[in-house]
């Protein structure tokens, strides 16, 4: 009877690092054999590697959990799905089915939402760059337009004149909520009086009707109290506007920025401890609403939470393509997916799971992506048992910003599949091939290689 084999490992003890668990928070190596009951091996066999896998079940669960946290506390709640977080049609469609309207920030996203069958009035149109053509379409289709700067007021007034009707608009404001850095590049600043100037300007023009306020205090905000301060300032400003200009503020869009259970690089606390539960955010926000709103006044509360809904619903399956020993003794693995697909690797340290039991003690390792580019690193320092070629690594959470910010650099983008609630698997974005990439290219006749 031969002994069970584990790959040989020797590690030098270094002062300050003599902890058998290693300095990596990810020492608790986890095994994942399936996603929602569908085996990893089956997924890869059918759809290849790397492979993005979205869980419909988890996506709906997350949405309901967050939506319910608010709707059980406040009677007038509307969610806007932040397209830029993940605008794959299937993802948007699931969230629209759950009752979210669309929140878009560009002409492309506006067209995408319309193309999916979302009506103009079900679209929130944000962002600093709304070219006049799309702005006119949005205005005529009744979208909720959130003005970012004075030039946009001018543009909209011209459009109102052209359409021969008043346009309902909201303005985006920014403010000090105690969050650093303060997001002050979008919208009109509250403390300097700029926001009030914008309202004055809109009122004096007479062509636009202000009916909403929008604010977005930042991203990955770990302090629920900041939202309480945001809401308080927004409500006070809304009443100032109503009392002095005769506009009725029908809705307050408090933006998003809620964190997911992802680990930001450079933060010490693990996400299960550092990230407050969504109920804590809902509590602070609604508490602040009730203590600042006038009796009987329940303006619509709009939330544009993106990351908190989708991030944990998606995984990326990758395969160890090769391994090597670095001159400093660390083990390096080359995975078939890197920062080309995981843009968020620049600021997150992902949860890494392995598809099989591995024998052997942990050793310091680094995981590189496939790119011929020095910055292509998915994890620059972790502890891993020696992995054999072909081992699958499952990265999560990857649902936010990767399917929108991924880049086509020297590699094709892989299949994205959704594990449906009934455990069937649907391809929701086919893997690319050469014709996808070259379709828009034109080679001048004289440059053709004969």
């Amino acid at each position, binding site marked *: 009877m031969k002994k069970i084999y584990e790959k040989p490992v020797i590690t030098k003890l270094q*002062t300050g690092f003599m*902890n058998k668990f290693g300095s990596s*928070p990810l*020492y608790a190596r986890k095994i994942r054999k399936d996603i929602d009951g569908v085996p990893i091996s089956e997924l890869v066999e059918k759809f290849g590697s790397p492979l993005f896998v979205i869980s419909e079940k988890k996506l709906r669960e997350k949405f309901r959990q967050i939506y319910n946290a608010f709707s059980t506390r406040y009677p007038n709640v509307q969610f806007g799905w932040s397209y830029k977080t993940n605008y794959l049609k299937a993802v948007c469609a699931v969230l629209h089915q759950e009752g979210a309207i669309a929140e878009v920030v560009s002409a492309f996203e506006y067209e995408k939402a319309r193309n999916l069958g979302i009506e103009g009035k079900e679209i929130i149109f944000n962002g600093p760059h709304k070219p006049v053509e799309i702005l006119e379409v949005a205005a005529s289709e009744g979208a909720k337009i959130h003005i970012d700067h004075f030039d946009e007021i001018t543009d909209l007034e011209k459009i109102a004149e052209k359409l021969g009707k008043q346009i309902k608009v909201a303005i985006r404001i920014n403010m000090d909520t105690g969050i650093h850095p303060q997001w002050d590049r979008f919208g009109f600043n509250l403390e300097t009086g700029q926001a009030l100037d914008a309202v004055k300007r809109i009122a004096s023009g007479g062509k636009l009707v202000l009916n909403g306020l929008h604010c977005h205090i930042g991203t990955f905000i770990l302090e629920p109290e900041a939202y309480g301060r945001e809401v308080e300032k927004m409500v006070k400003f809304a009443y100032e506007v109503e009392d002095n200009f005769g506009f009725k503020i029908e809705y307050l869009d408090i933006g998003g920025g809620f964190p997911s259970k992802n680990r930001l690089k450079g933060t010490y606390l*693990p*996400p299960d*401890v550092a990230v407050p539960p969504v109920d804590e955010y809902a509590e602070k926000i609604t508490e602040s609403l009730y203590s600042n709103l006038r009796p009987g006044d329940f303006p619509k509360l709009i939330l544009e939470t993106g990351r908190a809904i989708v991030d944990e619903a998606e995984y990326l399956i990758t395969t160890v393509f090769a391994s090597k020993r670095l001159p400093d003794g660390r083990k390096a693995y080359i995975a078939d997916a890197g920062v080309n697909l995981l843009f968020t690797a620049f600021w997150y340290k992902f949860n890494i799971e392995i598809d099989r039991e591995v024998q052997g003690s942990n050793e310091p390792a680094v995981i590189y992506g496939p790119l011929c580019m020095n910055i292509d690193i998915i994890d620059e320092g972790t502890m891993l048992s020696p992995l054999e070629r072909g081992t699958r690594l499952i990265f999560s959470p990857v649902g936010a910003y990767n399917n929108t910010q991924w880049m086509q650099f020297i590699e094709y983008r892989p299949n994205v599949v959704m594990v449906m609630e009934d455990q069937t698997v649907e391809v929701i974005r086919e893997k690319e091939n050469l014709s996808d990439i070259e379709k828009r290219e034109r080679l001048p006749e004289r440059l053709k290689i004969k």
Partner: protein
Amino acid sequence: MEIKIAVSGINAVDNPGPGIGVAKSLLEAEDFSAEIVGLAYDAMEPGIYMDWIVKKSFIMPYPSGGHDAFINRLLYIKENYGMDFFMPVLDAELPVVIKYSHELEKNGIKTFLPTYEQFKLRSKDRLEEIANNIGIEIPKSEVVTSYEELIKAIEKIGLPVMVKGAFYKAYRAFTTQEAVSYYNKIVAQWGYPIIVQQVVSGEEMNVVAAGDGEGSSLGMVGIKKVWITELGKIWTGITIKNEKMLSASQKFIEKYSWKGAFELECIVDTKESRVYLIEINPRFPAWSYFSTGVGVNIAANIIRKSFGMPVKNYTDYPAGKLYVRFTDDLVTDMERFQKIITRGES
């Protein structure tokens, strides 16, 4: 009564953790018999080798591993060796242990810690509110993230100012130019935000105390640091009784129903009779044995309270007692080191 008490922070080095002081205090209690289980993060923490205080030690995964790593390790120790109580004394451990204290309790590991809400009170932006509530002052301070804000803050506070990083580094600036250069220095090394703080004159005085979670004190001692090392750590200290500072601590326990040990760091201007709150640490300080030495065994009282034993009522302590830290050394063979390296326990 025999109680197995796990204590962390047994790194008795030049910047010592609070663990050994707490362990010594627990061993001195006469009404129960404590066995100290050391929890270490490195095989070279001296406590592991101080077998007259720490009977057995375990290497812990870092608290940044969260539930799966950290809490499971505690449960492993409970099951395989025994642990009736866990006294975490390091800042990084507290959020994790507080978060999962119910789970630990359910598995037979008691703790005695503030709630997460209470724990968050000590954050820098809440200090002003606390100082107001307990009747002391706080140096004026502003959080800045740009030159413009920095200049404004200096105008508001007035020179000289302290320019501080959020976690590390603090410099005293006498001119705006100096402040700007320190600001750049800290930003380059530690990033934003930067805190600009009023310079207050006075002496550094501290309180070690614990609240029972119901508004009463489990013991309290005030001290002044007489001599500190280059790292800013106490080497010689003396007990004092500054009424204003002690009553502020008492109010802190009452108003916030604080549960567990804490350290109040103050600057006391005795000429003007002003007490400024600098920081609240939600744990024992490294010099906590000082209070035990003057008859106020706070750590033991926490154990008494947790296990339903009669709590000692420490109403007074003598002022003018001296605290002297000293260095010592020991020689041992590699066996304990080998064991802790290969098995993760001594």
